[in-house]
């Protein structure tokens, strides 16, 4: 009798333990990959400067490691903050509605995992070829994604059955079959553009609170039924190529800098110094957060890294000074938009590559635009400052001590700025050097092995989730490109008239709407080449418009549904994204005012 009860009680918890073990192993593997990536990039920098020789194939090896990272982290991105679930609607539903939404959400995860598994396996058979520098067989990459899909399915089954929800998972599986039947049965005669069908399906998944990367993958897969040009093997290959972007390699390193800085105590020292300078003002720490974000932006090219750093470093401190946690997180998210406007900037690199605009002028104007945005944010922060966010004015001795304490953290900025600006390393290498330097700081601060492991695991799983999201938006971008969504956007930009202000207004509106459904990088690559010539023909300096385009799209980091900066900050602070989307509204307003000022400025210069 007792034994029987024992059996029944352990059966589910065994499954739960297996699931936990799998998660643990995958997380540790992600951390190990980041460590390897760091060593690899640092060694290639050292080879170049100590021995004068380049490590040929180093960049290819780094890209392979990043794709391995995404495949390993893919199953972890289903649950928790990394899932980037849009919870705005589901949290308002009655219990029955929530249960149904959960079924639909799981259906999207199942469909995405099945697509990765099936499409990855087919692509592994068909892709052929060897990698150019290392001569590795290319089939390994889709095979890794297939393994990622299989592990996602396994984890989902283990965890749902441990929670006694296997029957509901079966209902979700039936839903997938039904949706596939509808898409592939009625799709061809529906006369719906594949990208539009994918968009509508994605909207459904979004409202149901499905994880963002999985709903993008699943929707693109179903859209194949509507005459879509992207069969599953090509979908997986497109996802992989979305992940394999050299510039993305900076992301895990800057995430690592963020975790290790906090662990080493250097971040605390930086905050103390900033507080000693401006802490006595109204909203002192919030203004410090802004100032630090500006400084960080001058060193980093990734708003996502900036958001992760700020969320770890400042959000808890702001909350401790009386800000509501969501407001603190919103300030961090809003200030991190600056990173892609103040050079160096990944966004400007992408835009220059896609449009032939001169990068030098883009970057110079980025400083101006970043200044206007920072000023508007400073006003918004001052207006909303908490009384408690103010401290006694520091005297000269305290400031000096705080300055000396913060020197190691300044060293970090010096490495990155000097590295990139004065011609020693690429952006990715600068990020790796920053991570290596912070690792030394953390080791000097006697960080424990456990905390060190956790920092690598956290950076690894975070970077994997971000990489998966960027990869998952690539099939979507492909469908939009095939349906010439960009051409339609160009026609729209001329729809209010051919005058300078009409075209600029229309182009801004097109960007504001397109940014709702497109990843920022994807939107730049897709819309930049279309809109820049249209706006230039209306008499506006194309470089001015290029800067406006980036500023405009960066505000989408704060807007639902895709608002990546909100999801990153939510992931770090463990707050619900919906609360952050609400709290960020005043700061979003400030950035839109900055966009208006910059647009008027561009018109005045053109006139």
């Amino acid at each position, binding site marked *: 009798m007792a034994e029987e009860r024992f059996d029944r009680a352990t059966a589910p918890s065994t499954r739960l333990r297996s699931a936990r073990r799998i998660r643990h192993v995958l997380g540790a593997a992600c951390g190990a990959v980041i460590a390897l990536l760091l060593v690899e990039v640092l060694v290639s920098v050292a080879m170049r400067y100590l021995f004068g020789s380049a490590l040929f*194939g180093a960049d290819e090896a780094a890209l392979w490691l990043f794709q391995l990272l995404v495949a390993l982290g893919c199953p972890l991105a289903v649950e928790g903050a990394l899932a980037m679930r849009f919870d705005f609607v589901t949290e308002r539903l009655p219990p029955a509605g929530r249960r149904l939404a959960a079924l639909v959400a799981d259906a999207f995860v199942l469909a995405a995992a099945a697509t990765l598994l099936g499409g990855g396996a087919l692509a592994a058979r068909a892709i052929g070829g060897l990698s150019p520098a290392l001569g590795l067989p290319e089939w390994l990459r889709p095979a890794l994604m297939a393994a990622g899909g299989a592990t996602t399915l396994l984890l989902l089954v283990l965890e749902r059955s441990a929670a006694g929800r296997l029957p509901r998972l079966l209902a979700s599986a039936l839903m997938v079959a039904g949706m596939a039947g509808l898409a592939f049965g009625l799709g061809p005669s529906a006369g719906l553009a594949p990208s539009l069908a994918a968009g509508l399906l994605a909207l459904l998944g979004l409202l149901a609170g499905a994880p963002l990367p999985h709903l993008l993958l699943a929707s693109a897969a179903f859209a194949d039924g509507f005459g879509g040009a992207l069969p599953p*093997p*090509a979908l997986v290959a497109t996802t992989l*190529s979305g992940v394999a972007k050299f510039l993305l390699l900076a992301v895990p390193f800057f995430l690592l800098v963020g975790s290790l800085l906090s662990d080493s105590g250097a971040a605390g020292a930086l905050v103390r110094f900033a507080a000693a300078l401006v802490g006595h003002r109204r909203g002192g720490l919030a203004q410090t957060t802004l100032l630090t974000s500006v400084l960080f932006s001058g060193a980093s090219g990734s708003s996502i890294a900036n958001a992760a750093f700020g969320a770890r470093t400042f959000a808890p401190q702001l909350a401790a000074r009386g800000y509501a946690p969501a407001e603190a997180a919103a300030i961090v998210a809003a200030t991190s938009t600056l990173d892609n406007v103040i050079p160096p900037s990944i966004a400007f690199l992408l835009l220059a*590559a*896609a449009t032939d605009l001169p990068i030098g002028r883009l970057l110079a104007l980025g400083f101006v635009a970043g200044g206007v945005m920072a000023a508007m944010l400073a006003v918004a922060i001052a207006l909303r400052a908490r009384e408690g966010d103010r401290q006694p004015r520091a005297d000269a001795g305290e400031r000096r001590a705080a300055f000396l304490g913060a020197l190691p953290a300044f060293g970090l900025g010096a490495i990155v700025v000097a590295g990139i600006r004065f011609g*020693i390393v690429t952006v990715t290498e600068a990020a790796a050097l920053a991570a290596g330097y912070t690792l030394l700081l953390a080791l000097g601060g006697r960080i424990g092995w456990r905390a060190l492991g956790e920092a690598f695991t956290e950076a690894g799983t975070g970077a994997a989730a971000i990489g998966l999201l960027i990869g998952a938006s690539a099939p979507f971008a*492909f469908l939009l490109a095939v349906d*010439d969504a960009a051409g339609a956007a160009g026609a729209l930009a001329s729809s209010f008239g051919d005058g300078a202000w009409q075209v600029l207004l229309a182009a801004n509106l097109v960007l504001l709407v397109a940014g709702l459904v497109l990843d920022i990088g994807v939107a730049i690559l897709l819309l930049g080449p279309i809109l820049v010539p249209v706006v230039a023909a209306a008499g506006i300096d194309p470089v001015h418009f290029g800067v406006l385009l980036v500023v405009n799209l960066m505000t989408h980091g704060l807007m639902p549904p895709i608002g990546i900066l909100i999801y990153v900050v939510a992931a770090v602070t463990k707050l619900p994204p919906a609360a952050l989307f609400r709290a960020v509204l005043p700061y979003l307003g400030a950035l839109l005012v900055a966009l208006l000022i910059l647009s008027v400025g561009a018109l005045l210069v053109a006139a």
Partner: protein
Amino acid sequence: RPARAATRLTVASLLGRDKPETLIWRHVAEKVEAALPGAFAFNIVPNAALGAEREVAEGLRLGSIQASLLTVASLSAWAPDTQILDLPFLFRDPAHLKRVVSGDLGTVIKARLAAERFAVPAFVNYGARNLIAKAPMLRPEAVRGHRIRVLQSPVHAALWQAFGAYPTAIPIPETYNALQNGVVDMMDFTKSAYAGFRLYEVVPVTTETRHIWASGVAAFSAPFWDGLEAEKRAALAAAVTEGATYFDDLVETDAAAAMRKAQEAGGSLVQPEDLGEWQRIGRSVWPAFAGAVGGLDRIEAIAAA
């Protein structure tokens, strides 16, 4: 003849709407429309919106893209013997290259690519690659000890190693910054791509070494190509063959315009000295690739053709 549904094909171009890489497909579409009205519906997607070259090549194999121009460098991952067209100082001029790809070697390469699921009706010539740097690189010794940005291709890496330089494969979006900052000191490129990426702003001096003629192919997805009715396939093949000549002419015009643009912005073009020594060092990498491309005899025969 009964009305048939038009065969839809998605065509990828890496560059803008007004570049030869895109214009060739508009030309092909017009030619087949004149020959077989309503037979094909071309969807030409420019600006690398469907991915970079490698991804486009994968798309042809996996069924998401039906046609594109592809460089020989990108195809060597599947068919290493195509690298023969990328060997340094092998071809004297465009006519020499055209003669060779129209002959037996062209037939061999087409068959090789067909086995790798790329149907190739015609070869194209993107123009000569030249050495570009902040200063003139007149003699081979000038290259020694410098870091050079190269394509991710073994031939290109071996070539610059032979000159005593350090090849570094940097992706094109990072190349401008890397050159500006001195992460690398120089690179090689065709004239029109050099101007297209505004690289004259950071590396203003082109030394006209013409060390490699960048060859490519007009490629179709083999399952798509093989599935066409004979009449349609013949019309398409004829249009693409004519389009390739049209492309080669456009590239020459574009290169001249590109160099004018570069020179207006302060760029300059210089001629290398002691070309014989450049050729001797460049050709020293031939034996290392002879095994992969069908033997040194074949290389020598092409050089003499």
